[in-house]
């Protein structure tokens, strides 16, 4: 009791706070890896060992690596499904896989690639790289991002466990009603899909909010918007797009789930519902989603090309403006997925024009990259090979994209294999090739070791050749009238030969991905040590160790140039000082000019994000099984979120110790 009373006295409190946080003199951060400040930072930022620390972590690098690793595992799993589907389609009238399993497999493949792989892997890369690139020690809301990871992991696992138990979603990755609705979506398969959408989109939104805040408010002093790296721009644009687009698909999935669980009539034409609502809501999200995947990839390329061309990006401003323009235009395209539904003529003209116009900002970027290469001196390593592969494949995919932007032509090839070819050209060309480039480029930063160059070249060539052998013939199949999502076809359709060729290509892709996995495993076991900056790059993530320590920088950098590691100014301050090394302290800067504004205490590790994620998942499944679970199931998450927010003694003490009123 007396201790409690004593704690109410502010002076006593300040003293108690100091005692609980650090003994003796306050230690401030500053440059020098071997300094007392560095070891104090290490003590402050180190996380608990063991399972508990593993669950509690809020380190953006650990969370980011988890995202990337998990999504890559699911990428491989969905790739295996693709290989099985290609084997089924290699010959006409094949009986390898029946229609029920085939439907589940292509749904799982599409759902996994779009929701479980592509968006999380890009966000994961950003969660890892953005705080390093803008020069801060953690993300703004690292607990929220940790929670997002657990939501994502549990949601994805539940979908795949469901698939293993013959409860795999089977209405396509777009889950059109009525096929996914209460009458034709039989069993619990579509419920699992709707849950997954809720969980992965919640994940996407949480990470997007976190990343946008980091980029806007936590950049190193001096990193004004004009000096911000293109990758940070790409993630900012993506995050804002996510914030506007993802609510749409969450709403759609929930309306569909209400139809299934509570017998509402949103998609029931007999009771005033409209099945096209689903398509509008889905594609209002679905088309921008392509750009959530594509724009970060543009960011990778705009980061990698300057490093290997040994010069700053040509047309930095034009590239940034193009990305912003893409972000806006992406919201005007969704109807081009619906040209075969009945649309007013005026609408068709508008959406055709938008679909074609979006090619212009991409063209601007491609020309700026070519100009950069043209006027640079080129260090031809594996990352740049993948970028060159990107040029070939994405441009081809973009050309077919322009073709299908034309309504009349789209009416012919819509939902045919031409579209399968187009979307794989733009998604693999526009996202997976840049992603592999990014893996080769940043792997040394993640692990401290360089991926093997020779295996990398082999991987590139097998991937490039395999990709084109697989997907180019599909253009021809589409023109020859082969529709998508069929589990088999008759011999007299004449589609057999091209399908067999595509299947052979798929096998080559499988070999290529295997080579990458081998490369990663071999490198982890003992690859060439990378050093802090193996490529001679310009951005801030290379200004710290590889892999970076938990606190990222011994002293936060100060930036005086667009290329901070290439063009330093002699009389500029180089780093920030005066931040506590005993508390997880960082700096908030102003939005436009990144002037130092407020000191900020980062959240500490906490078990509650993981617990909250589990309770949310339980709630969703509970509400699928019985409608009352919708209400009772809310109680555990509410408790978890309150405990998450509730300030601990130590947090209050830290706040008081650092406190300085604005």
């Amino acid at each position, binding site marked *: 009791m007396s201790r409690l009373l004593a704690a109410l006295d502010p002076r006593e409190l300040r003293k108690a706070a100091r005692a609980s946080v650090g003994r003796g003199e306050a230690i401030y951060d500053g440059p020098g890896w071997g300094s007392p400040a560095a070891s104090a930072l290490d003590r402050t930022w180190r996380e608990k060992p063991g399972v508990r620390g593993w669950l509690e972590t809020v380190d953006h690098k650990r969370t980011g690596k988890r995202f990337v690793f998990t999504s890559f595992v699911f990428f491989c799993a969905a790739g295996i499904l693709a290989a099985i589907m290609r084997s089924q389609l290699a010959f006409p009238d094949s009986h390898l896989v*029946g229609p*029920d399993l085939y439907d589940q497999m292509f749904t799982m493949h599409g759902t996994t690639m779009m929701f479980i792989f592509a968006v999380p892997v890009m966000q994961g890369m950003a969660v890892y790289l953005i705080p390093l690139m803008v020069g801060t020690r953690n993300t703004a809301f690292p607990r929220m991002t940790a929670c997002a990871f657990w939501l994502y992991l549990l949601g994805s696992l539940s979908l795949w466990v*469901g698939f*293993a*138990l*013959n*409860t795999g979603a089977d209405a396509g990755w777009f889950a059109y009603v*009525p096929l996914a*609705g*209460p*009458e*034709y979506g*039989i*069993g*619990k*398969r579509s419920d699992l899909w709707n849950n997954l959408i809720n969980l992965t989109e919640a994940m996407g939104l949480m990470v997007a909010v976190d990343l946008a805040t980091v980029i806007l408010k936590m950049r190193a002093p001096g990193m004004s918007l004009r000096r911000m790296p293109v990758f940070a721009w790409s993630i900012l644009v993506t995050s804002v797009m996510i914030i506007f687009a993802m609510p749409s698909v969450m709403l759609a999935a929930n309306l569909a789930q209400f*139809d*299934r*669980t509570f*017998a509402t*009539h949103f*998609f*029931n*034409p*007999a*009771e005033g519902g409209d099945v096209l609502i689903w398509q509008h809501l889905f594609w209002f999200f679905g088309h921008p989603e392509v750009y959530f995947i594509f724009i970060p990839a543009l960011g990778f390329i705009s980061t990698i090309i300057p490093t290997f061309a040994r010069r700053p990006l040509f047309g930095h401003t034009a590239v940034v403006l193009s990305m912003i323009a893409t972000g806006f235009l992406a919201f005007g395209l969704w109807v081009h997925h619906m040209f075969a539904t009945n649309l007013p003529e005026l609408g068709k003209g508008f959406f055709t024009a938008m679909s074609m116009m979006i090619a212009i900002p991409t063209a601007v970027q491609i020309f700026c990259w070519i100009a950069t290469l043209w006027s640079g001196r080129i260090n031809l390593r594996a990352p740049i090979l993948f970028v060159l592969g990107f040029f070939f494949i994405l441009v081809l995919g973009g050309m077919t994209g322009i073709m299908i932007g034309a309504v009349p032509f789209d009416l012919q090839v819509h939902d045919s294999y031409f579209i399968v070819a187009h979307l794989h050209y733009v998604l693999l060309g526009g996202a997976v090739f840049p992603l592999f480039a990014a893996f080769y480029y940043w792997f040394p930063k993640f692990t401290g070791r360089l991926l093997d160059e020779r295996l990398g070249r082999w991987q590139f060539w097998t991937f490039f050749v395999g990709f084109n052998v697989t997907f180019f013939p599909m253009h021809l199949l589409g023109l020859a009238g082969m529709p998508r999502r069929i589990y088999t076809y008759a011999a007299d359709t004449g589609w057999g030969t091209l399908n067999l060729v595509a299947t052979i290509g798929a096998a080559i892709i499988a070999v290529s991905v295997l080579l990458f996995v081998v490369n990663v495993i071999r490198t982890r076991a003992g690859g060439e040590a990378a050093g802090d900056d193996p490529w001679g790059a310009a951005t801030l993530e290379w200004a710290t160790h590889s892999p970076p320590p938990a606190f990222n920088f011994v002293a936060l950098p100060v930036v005086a140039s667009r290329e901070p590691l290439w063009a330093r100014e002699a009389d500029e301050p180089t780093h920030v000082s005066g931040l506590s090394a005993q508390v997880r302290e960082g700096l908030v800067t102003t939005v436009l000019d990144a002037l130092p504004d407020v000191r900020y205490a980062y959240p500490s590790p906490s078990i509650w994000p993981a617990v909250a994620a589990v309770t949310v998942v339980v709630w969703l499944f509970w509400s699928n*099984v*019985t*409608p009352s679970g919708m209400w009772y199931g809310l109680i555990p998450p509410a408790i978890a979120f309150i405990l998450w927010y509730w300030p601990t003694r130590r947090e209050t003490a830290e706040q008081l110790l650092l406190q300085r009123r604005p």
Partner: protein
Amino acid sequence: MNVRAACCVVAAIVSLAACQREKRDFEAPTKAVTPPPVRLSEIQPGAISTKTSLEGKYEDNAFALSEGKRLFGWYNCTGCHAHGGGDKGPALMDRVWIYGSEPAQIYATIVEGRPNGMPSFGGHIPDNEVWELVAYVRSLSGLASGMASPNRSDTMHVKAPESNVEAQQPVTAAPSGASERP
């Protein structure tokens, strides 16, 4: 060790339940299953057993139940029973059963027909479809698995979906007013 064993058991049960619920059985059963003859009297030595091995295969299976729902409309059961509320024929969504609520009894009712208007569908409906209808008829009063029962249809709203029906304790009763009907 015990935990792991328990996890394995739970996983096995879950997987069985899921497989049962989600299996799409496109093949017809190889031979017809003849249920025991229907009993109208409960007087007999020992316990009554009318169970067949097939019940779970249909009643816990979402596909079979939804097929049953489709056939209930296709074979015009709705003509007399409406959507379960009853019309010329008795209601099927209440707890009252005239000829028994056990699957085998309902099977016999469909196949053999009953006095006062229930026609015999024997020979007209393949055996597995009769069982699907049996399972669906039971789901109308909540006797089939709630996890597998159909959700609402894309039709006019007439009643709560089968998946939201509380299980009702069946009671056997004489046909109400059946004797007055021609």
